[in-house]
């Protein structure tokens, strides 16, 4: 019989190799951008400019980066499916698999958003982040395929974790836009015309609005994660809420993003402060996935480590 677990791992490494080249192409594009025509800056406070949609204006390196990202993503997808076949179940039951699926979803959401808005300038971030994450999970979190213990055999687990991963993908992109928004806002405030890379990016208010829309989708998904988790907890442990460590962090993240959404509608908080909240929220998501899974003990010790 084919050793799917092994093939899957080969797939992950191959995808990483291709992501690396894509990352280099995207980075090169950013570094040489200054030569291109700047996108007009929208003055702060105004409504969102109609951000350019199709990647028609893309430079050659950006196109190479995109093509390679799609290729890497397909390999990544096959590797993830292979892992699922090896375990004869969904490939998101321990930290390694969760990392595999989450990164797959981040790239998927990124590629998906390109049909909607030109977020091509996030290519370097997305490929770089995914590369780093894949490296960490394969080196530090890899575990052999083992069957699920009875407590984890639940349809709600499948939904809960998958939706959580999807939410993570949206938050990851939202946070990147918030960072760019902050940097961009600083340049706008100082009117630094010489920062040529920055001038090729959309204005900070456009970034803010894009980040908001991605984060709101993430928030809806995260709310669902919370509810599905509570249902699963009720079925498995007999209570829907018990302030288990993982539950606590899921709520902290939810409340942080509720705060973020409110901040965007609060005088004095709209703009940079709201952006910081979005970034902190995504930081909490990462913390929840890494530190909480590894260092904190709780009922959710599914890391497999």
């Amino acid at each position, binding site marked *: 019989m084919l050793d799917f677990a092994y093939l899957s791992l080969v797939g992950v490494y191959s995808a990483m190799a291709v992501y690396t080249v894509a990352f280099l192409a995207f980075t090169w594009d950013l570094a040489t951008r200054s030569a291109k025509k700047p996108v007009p800056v929208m003055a702060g*406070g105004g409504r969102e400019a109609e951000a350019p949609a199709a990647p028609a204006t893309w430079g050659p390196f950006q196109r190479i980066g995109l093509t390679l990202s799609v290729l890497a993503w397909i390999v990544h997808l096959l590797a993830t499916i292979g892992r699922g076949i090896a375990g004869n179940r969904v490939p998101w039951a321990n930290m390694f698999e969760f990392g595999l699926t989450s990164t797959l979803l981040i790239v998927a959401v990124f590629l998906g958003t390109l049909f909607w808005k030109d977020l091509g300038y996030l290519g370097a971030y997305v490929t770089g982040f995914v590369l780093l994450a894949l490296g960490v999970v394969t080196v530090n979190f890899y575990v052999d395929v083992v069957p699920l213990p009875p407590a984890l055999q639940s349809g709600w687990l499948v939904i809960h974790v998958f939706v959580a991963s999807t939410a993570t993908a949206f938050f990851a992109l939202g946070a990147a836009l918030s960072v760019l928004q902050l940097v961009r806002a600083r340049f706008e405030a100082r009117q630094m015309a010489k920062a040529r890379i920055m001038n090729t990016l959309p204005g900070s208010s456009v970034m803010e609005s894009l980040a908001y829309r991605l984060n709101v989708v993430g928030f*809806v998904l995260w709310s669902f994660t919370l509810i599905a988790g509570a249902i699963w907890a009720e079925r498995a442990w007999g209570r829907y809420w018990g302030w*288990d460590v993982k539950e606590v962090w899921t709520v902290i993240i939810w*409340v942080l993003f509720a705060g973020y959404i409110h901040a*965007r509608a*609060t005088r004095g908080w709209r703009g940079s402060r709201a952006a910081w909240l979005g970034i902190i929220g995504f930081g909490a998501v990462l913390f929840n996935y890494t530190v909480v899974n590894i260092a904190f003990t709780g009922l959710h010790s599914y890391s497999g480590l």
Partner: protein
Amino acid sequence: MEPLRPSDYDDGAPERPIQQPSLGWVGFGRFMWRQLTSMRTALVLLLLLALASIPGSLVPQRSSDPNGVVQFRRDDPELFEILDALQLFDTFTSVWFSAIYLLLFISLVGCILPRTSHHLKALTSPPPDTPARLERFEHYRKETAEGTPEELLDAAKETLTSHGYRVKVDGTSVSGERGYLRETANLVFHFALVGILVGLAVGTGFKYQGQRVLVEGQTFTNQLTSYDSFNPGRFFSDASLEPYSLTLNSFTPTYQFDLTSGFANPLDFVADVTLRDAEGAQDLELRVNEPIDYAGTSVYLLGNGFAPWITVYSPSGDVVFSQPVAFLPQDSNLTSLGVVKIPDGLPEQLGMIGFFYPSAVALETGALTSVYPEPDQPVLTLNVFRGDLGLDEGIPRNVYSLDTDELTQVTGGDTGVDSLVMGLGERAEIPGGLGSVEFTELRRFVSVDVHRDPTQLPVAISAVFIMAGLIMTLFVTRRRAWIKITPGKKGQATLEFAVLARGEDPGLRRGLDDLVEAFSQSTKSRLNP
């Protein structure tokens, strides 16, 4: 009509002048109330709530990890004292945490009640008048059309209505507003939050939760005395215990042995049970993740293990003890620890601490270990203690532990006498002529939790409303539109279209173009190209 918003609400529009509060107590009270129900306060309280939850994940909590708390106290008694004084081991019921969420709760109610009454009024009032100069709007188009003013007005009304606008004719123009659902959904969302909070609070008062260890063949009836431990809410009454009984007929685990890791992975745990109530009996399967729901209570399968049947004979051969004893699993291969107490029938009271190994093998040191969680080579070992078990003092004793401080050890440990070791069906003499012990039979046990939480359904319904409210706010946009008709010569008229966003509205421009497009296709008029 604008939805009502706290004074520090920001939708990206320029700041409006803020009214100075009037002086005096009433004015001050009103000022404080406005502060409490402002966006900023809600935001700060939300962030505080997130911050205040963090200790609950860093320090073990009495509610979710009581053993962790005990461990903490043992490891660092001094720090324990300080943290306990700060209620850090009960974060989520602490004074400071409760204060934050109560304030948030008040702020929430204070925010949404006035908004609701305002919105109800808005739902029944017509859209606002058409502004005098539409060309000031960012999203504006001017066209010319043929048709009488009446026809054009009709067409304009029809166009806006068919796009979901509520319309009002204002002279020669039509004013429309749509997206009331957005505010409705937002209010539904916030009310559902209140529903969850109330549900959680009421739930803790009325729910109960009981644990029971059931050995194969045993029956448990849903009565207080039947539980090994029971945690009722503050308003619990015996009447809420539904009368029924549950018999464990058999328990069947399924394992898969993983050759590479050498571990047995559990695949499935099934308990065959019989549930009896006034109506009769029914056979059911109880699984992990698949509780039995019965009359508002749920029965969960939480743990399982072995319960060796132990028989103790007096020196003269009389049976003084004969029953299955649940041994608590210590590792994944179900090496299990159990305690037997024999207060009567022997010359002296006896206590025994034993290990059970379902698949025993001897290590090089001579110690036993279990290599598989199934009973391939079941072995029971017992260390015997004699002396006063302290059962008569009226102090409640844990059946799973034996306080050996006052007892004299007879076998095992430092006594130099080997522990009693028995295979299934074997009998061993207790040294010193104290009697004998037999490992008579091997049974399994399950530990079940029985829960009742009457607010579970209301909380679930609130959760559904939360999701519905959220999704609706995401997809519904609030928008205003105007179509103004200025009659010209020869049946020609000038048409002005304008739209205005109320909040987040990425598709505004497209919305305007759609309106013009729809108007030009309407039967009653003809837009000039």
